[in-house]
């Protein structure tokens, strides 16, 4: 078993209203020194055998991320 982690984030120029809502809530926790929050998604893919990064990249590009609005990066984790 091998685990590949895919992180998907909105591109910097795309407005993230969820992140803004979280940032706006932080003063209520007494936090005043955070200037920005952006929210993404972490996806873990388990391969039955060897981790196949090319395959993972294809999955991320075709399905997990929408390249129009999102960037992704992928890595193999050691703790699988």
């Amino acid at each position, binding site marked *: 078993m091998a685990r590949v982690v895919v992180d998907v984030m909105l591109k910097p*120029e*795309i*407005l993230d*209203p*969820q992140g803004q*809502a979280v940032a706006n809530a932080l003063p209520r926790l007494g936090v005043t020194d955070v200037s920005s929050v952006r929210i993404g998604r972490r996806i873990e893919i388990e391969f039955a055998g060897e981790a196949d990064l090319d395959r993972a990249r294809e999955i991320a590009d075709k*399905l*997990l991320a*929408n390249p*129009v*609005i999102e960037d992704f990066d992928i890595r193999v984790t050691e703790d699988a």
Partner: protein
Amino acid sequence: MRIGVVTFPGSLDDGDAARAARIAGAEAVRLWHGDPDLHGVDAVVLPGGFSYGDYLRCGAIARFAPVMESIIKAANGGLPVLGICNGFQVLCEAHLLPGALTRNQHLHFRNRDQWLRVQSVDTAWTNGYTEGQEILIPVKNGEGCYVADERTLDALEAEGRIVARYIKGNPNGSQRDIAAITNEAGNVVGIMPHPEHAVEALTGPSLDGLGFFTSVLRALAGATAGGQQSGGHQ
């Protein structure tokens, strides 16, 4: 004329879309997401709803449904396709239309009757309107904020591919007030508000939505009579 209406798991407005097609005078043909056969339909409507629970991103999983493989191929060959709400999201995910639909800027689900201005009447689905016509149809979405890069937006404007804009208030923060767009050929249209909910006095705020369904019948009749695809984009 036969208008196909696709049902995905989680589609909501397939029944209303089929009914609108019938009221316009077409035969409504129900298409199933798992069946790649388009059953000889002359046009296709992708209805509103929450296909596959809106998991991952709205429309992202529906795009890979067996029926979509056939629709993508047929749309590239000129088949008229109208995506309403979730259907618009599916068309963007399938790259039949540019850009993407994201969470409403104010984060609230918006459900109200909405004024639009029809900007392009050169499509298979809007040839029955007049340019600049103001219409009132329901909008109901949580992820209807249209975004694209500036170059794409400029191209859409320059090529007359913005089909309708929100007027008297933008319900979701869409860039340049975009409510509906079309592809280069004018056969594929995506619209966030719901024309199929405005086809009868009893249930809608107006009859303004019926024009989408009568337009495609006219485009198809023209294509048959003239031996070429009408509704093409200039």
